[in-house]
């Protein structure tokens, strides 16, 4: 994950802009890109900087909470797999994954944990393939739990590792801003096409969880965003509402219908609603603007 690096670069760019502004008379002939790229309106606007500390703390708490539940739910799932209880294992698979899917941006920032937990077949070398989707294949394709008990144990270990690392990881503001869009990009590239859960067809669970994770970030940033660009903030809010309303129509009990129940026009509609949301969401970086 390059997010930390990106943020560092952005921070440097911002500080360069700052310097440029405070001494702009001396530099007026300088063609430095970082300086000239900053629109003068922004540069002269009163600095109203976002206080990131409480926001990041809140996001960390949220992520840790999700990770905690991920462990307890994965434990139940693993128990079912190891005891050969196919029905329960299949029933728990999709809802368990949702705790992971909500916090994927932060998990992705933690080295190899994302592939260990969430790689699909052919994403990694066959010898290294493990995690949820390895077990999914065992349950739905091979129709047995016997082959995957080993993977079940390792999955539980990996989720615990994830939880432990979460205490210490540096969460940069840019991780939040890009992470929310990243979650929706996940949806539009693999969930809405039914590629993520190719054996179980439980893609809509992941879909919903990714959207919830993105919405959580938006809610944390909402007040600051509103101060900076109220129009953008309300556009994002409306787009979340539209998407959630559409998603609700595919609810089935506590969960969601199978991906195979979707018609082509359903997929198209959901995909377009994701695009409609992700476009304004990608503008959330305005709150990281040169201040």
């Amino acid at each position, binding site marked *: 994950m390059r997010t930390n690096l*990106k943020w560092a*670069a*952005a921070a440097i*760019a911002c500080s360069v*802009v700052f310097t440029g502004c405070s001494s702009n008379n001396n530099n007026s002939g300088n063609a430095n890109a*970082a300086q*000239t*790229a*900053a*629109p003068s309106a*922004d540069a002269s606007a009163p600095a109203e900087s976002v206080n990131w500390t409480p926001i990041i703390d809140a996001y960390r708490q949220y992520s840790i909470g999700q990770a905690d539940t991920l462990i307890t739910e994965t434990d139940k799932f693993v128990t079912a797999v190891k005891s050969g209880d196919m029905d329960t294992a299949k029933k728990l698979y999709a809802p368990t994954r949702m705790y992971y899917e909500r916090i994927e941006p932060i998990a992705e920032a933690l080295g190899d944990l994302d592939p260990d937990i969430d790689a699909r077949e052919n994403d990694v070398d066959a010898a290294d393939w493990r995690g949820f989707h390895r077990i999914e294949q065992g349950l739905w394709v091979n129709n047995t739990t016997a082959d995957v008990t080993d993977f079940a144990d390792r999955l539980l270990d990996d989720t615990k590792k994830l939880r432990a690392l979460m205490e210490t990881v540096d969460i940069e503001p*840019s991780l939040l*801003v890009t992470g929310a869009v990243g979650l929706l990009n996940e949806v539009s590239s693999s969930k809405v096409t039914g590629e993520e859960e190719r054996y179980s067809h439980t893609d809509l669970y992941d879909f919903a969880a990714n959207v919830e994770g993105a919405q959580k970030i938006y809610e944390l940033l909402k007040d600051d965003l509103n101060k900076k660009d109220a129009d953008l903030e309300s*556009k994002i809010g409306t*787009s979340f509402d539209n998407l959630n309303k559409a998603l609700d129509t595919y609810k089935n009990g506590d969960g969601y219908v199978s991906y195979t129940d979707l018609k082509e026009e359903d997929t198209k509609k959901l995909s*377009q609603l994701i*695009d*409609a*949301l992700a*476009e*304004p969401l*990608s*503008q959330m*970086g*305005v709150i*990281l*603007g*040169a201040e």
Partner: protein
Amino acid sequence: MSEHQDDQKQTQMKEHLLNKPLSRRDLLRMAGIGGAGLLLGAAGVSGVLEAAGAIKAPENKPNHAGNGGIVDFYGEHQAGITTPSQNFIMFAAFDLVTVSLDDVRVLFQAWTAAAAAVSRGETVQAESGNENLPPADTGEAAGLSPSRTTITFGVGASFFDSRFGLAARRPAALVDMPAFGGDELRPEWCGGDIGVQVCSDDMQVAFHAVRNLARIGRGKVVLRWTQEGFQRTGAADPAGSTPRNLLGFKDGTGNPDVTDNRLMNEVVWAQPEDGTDWMAGGSYMAVRRIRMRIEVWDRSTLADQEQTFGRHRSSGAPLGSANEFDPIDLNAKDDTGKALIPVRSHVALAHGDGSVRILRRSYSYSSGMDNKTGQLDAGLLFICFNRDSRKQFIPLQQKLGQNDALNEYIVHNGSALFACFPGVRQGGYIGETLF
């Protein structure tokens, strides 16, 4: 010298004029107009010459004045209608997903600004310089010339349904297309609340325009269908002769002269007295995706092909004549008393008695292969502009759909009709007269 050659010579003169820095003496000599003190920028030259009647603009033939040209987005009429055809098209039909008329107005305002900027070869919006934001413009046209890009906007009949309260404003001429013979319409190439014709001398520039319009409209509009198309490029045909379609025949020989304002008012531009005030100066755009049965055509004899069109393939001349622009004489008979131009040939039906005219602005398309049959999915993205499709395009197509010998080789699988707004003045926006 034939009229056609004359046109060609004038086209070449104009090219010469636009390609080369002109001395004032050159200008006066070539244009044959006297008087001193002509202070003209390069862009003003052709306009003034045309106004003076010294040089006739080519009749809907590509203007090979290089690819750097700017076609002004603003004007009395929308650009892209009587503008000489560019090399490429990307057509896009959109559906509105918002139900707020205010949203639509704001969208049209944003599209106007973007379209005007793209026409000038600029980015759709200035960049913020904020590294934490996606760039405002998608960037693939950066550094490319304006490429004579035009963006032409229209609205379909569905724009006037119950959503926006505009039902009473629907032009009577914006009818639902009747069923035509030879139609095998597929919903994925039909209709749309909004139709946008983007033409450019560069495909990347055209794509950039559609992509950015879609991006600007995200959440308010979704793409319904798109089709790309091409004509031979200016580089391939510097003389700017009539383009050939993928059946190998010249297409558009009979187009009306777009420099004849009186004729354009008659054939193309909706008039105030036509009953829809907000459409005065606009035009109706019929779009048809016509798949050609390429493989079947390629198995038919030259005689069959020429009888089908009613023209000679090589010269484009009407059967029995020598030159492309020779008049079409439907009464001409051969020695045995048989009509030289078969009555069911494409030309005979399309020409008729010559009273019904449209302005064709078609492009060829090639969309890969039909995976079911392994045959080419290629044909014509037929586009025409007319003042009232009920009196022009529709009766013409009804006649063709029933009788045209060409129907054996083509199938219409896409169809749409759009009311294209009048032109936009500086500071205004597309659709302003309607809102």
